[in-house]
């Protein structure tokens, strides 16, 4: 768990220096000012504005998002981070077009999202693959939905991406014959092979072991880096290090909206060992870590 891991970080850094590390404006007290701070000055590929959403059933209605606003620039990698249950997956499902907001706007390239689209591919934590298709077929099946290329070309592309994620020789296996980490590799291969402009990932490494997670994070960084046209990525996680390693910006979610935007200043190509040693990294890590704790006051009070 991210929170457990985070406890080992030194917590002695001064708040003045932490302020220097943050390049984005701090959110102010009012919700209005807070929500304007989440728009960057670059043209937005994805724009979410004033979104509210409640889950309703017969007896009750639970507000999950209210006045949620942020944008994502073209080619940007943005992480959504926050405590579990704060609405990250719900937000991602809005971007995916799986769900519609009660009010507010979700725009992609300035056009309102009305459903799923061929410009987006999604990687989920679980069950992203079809159990009845071999690894190769799963990837080809994805490509075929967005491309009219001849069969042979699609097969070659699937083979290429499976090789790139380290699954050469495993193309003919069914998902149940693959470990969780391998299954996520296939899901990533499929999402990349579809070559959509936007990549949406919901805790894609949340269910794999720590060692595999590190490998997959590096692999994702590398693959995204070498793409001719940079993908726009929205990545949901609750792992602070993962967010800092992968993202250009981190959006912290709390109280049904984005409560804080953090610019991550590291240059590509990022090397996890190098950036982790910098002061800026530790400052940012502590800042996000403290936000988690503010969130979970009772957790802190319990003395764990």
């Amino acid at each position: 768990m991210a929170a457990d891991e985070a406890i080992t970080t030194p917590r002695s850094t001064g708040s003045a220096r932490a302020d220097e590390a943050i390049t984005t404006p701090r959110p102010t007290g009012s919700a209005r000012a807070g929500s304007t701070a989440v728009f960057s000055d670059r043209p937005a590929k994805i724009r979410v504005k004033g979104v509210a959403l409640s889950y309703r059933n017969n007896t009750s209605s639970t507000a999950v998002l209210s006045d949620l606003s942020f944008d994502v620039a073209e080619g940007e990698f943005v992480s959504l981070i926050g405590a579990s249950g704060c609405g990250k997956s719900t937000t991602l499902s809005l971007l995916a077009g799986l769900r519609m907001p009660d009010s507010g706007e979700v725009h992609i390239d300035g056009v309102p999202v009305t459903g799923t689209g061929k410009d987006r591919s999604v990687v989920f934590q679980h069950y992203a693959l079809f159990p009845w298709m071999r690894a190769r077929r799963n990837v080809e099946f994805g490509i075929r939905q967005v491309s009219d290329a001849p069969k042979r070309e699609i097969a070659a592309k699937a083979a290429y991406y499976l090789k790139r994620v380290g699954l050469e020789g495993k193309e003919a296996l069914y998902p149940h014959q693959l470990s969780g980490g391998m299954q996520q590799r296939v899901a990533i291969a499929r999402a990349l092979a579809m070559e959509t402009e936007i990549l949406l990932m919901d805790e894609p490494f949340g269910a794999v072991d720590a060692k595999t997670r590190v490998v997959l994070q590096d692999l994702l960084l590398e693959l995204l880096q070498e793409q001719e046209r940079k993908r726009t990525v929205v990545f949901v996680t609750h792992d602070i290090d993962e967010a800092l390693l992968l993202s250009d910006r981190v959006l912290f979610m709390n109280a049904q909206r984005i409560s804080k935007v953090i610019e991550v200043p590291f240059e590509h190509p990022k090397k996890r060992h190098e950036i982790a040693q910098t002061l800026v990294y530790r400052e940012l890590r502590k800042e996000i870590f403290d936000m988690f704790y503010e969130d979970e006051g009772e957790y802190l009070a319990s003395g764990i």
Partner: protein
Amino acid sequence: MPQASETSALARLSRVNLVRYLPQLIILALLGLAWSLYGALTGGSFLLPRPDEVVEVLGADFAKIFESIGASGLLLGLSSLIALVLGVLMGMLCGQFERLKGAVLPIARVLAPIPSLIYAPYAVAIVGDFFWAAVFVIASGLFWPVLFNTVNAIEDISDELINSARTLNLPTRTMFAWVMLPHCLPYLFNTLSVQVSNAFLLLVGAEMMGMRSGVGWYVKYWADYSNFTTVFAGIVVIAVIVFVVNILLEKFRDRVLSWK
């Protein structure tokens, strides 16, 4: 298993099969033995002939028996196919449209327990053809379990899988053919293997109501002449067919569901 890896795949396969079917084979052998003993001790009787008498009939009436097996196979295969196609289609539609499900399921629960052989006279009267009346009777008996299990299967699809499919923008046809149907297959194979005995009851019943061929007709025909040696031969044939159908179904399932 270290030794198994040294033997050829074929040898391994047949050994697995032998082990799997060993209990059934032992029981069959014991039954055969008991029957032979009975034959040797009593010399057989009018209602229960000796095994060698039955074997003699099987050999002598081979052509007719063979033809009957073909006719029954056609009837059963066609009826099962119709029940499967209609049941799966209806089940998927019910899975897709809650309203339809709300309308269909309560009626289905009332109709399903009625033995479909009751419809036989009506089916003959309406269709006017014994073969298609028999198809109707068998298919309508198998339709309900297929429908219920398909509805059940669709209810069991995880939201994650559906969302994954939706984010791929699958056209409706692809969604049905490559997501819903494969998901339902394990449920359908379960249904089929449970329904094999029911299907044969229906088959024999339907054939007895006025067909001119088929294993059920064969048994009924010779029973009317009180030729119990031939009746017994027919029963043996039916038993063997059921046994073979079960094994084939199992093989087919293992093949189709190799992804499980």
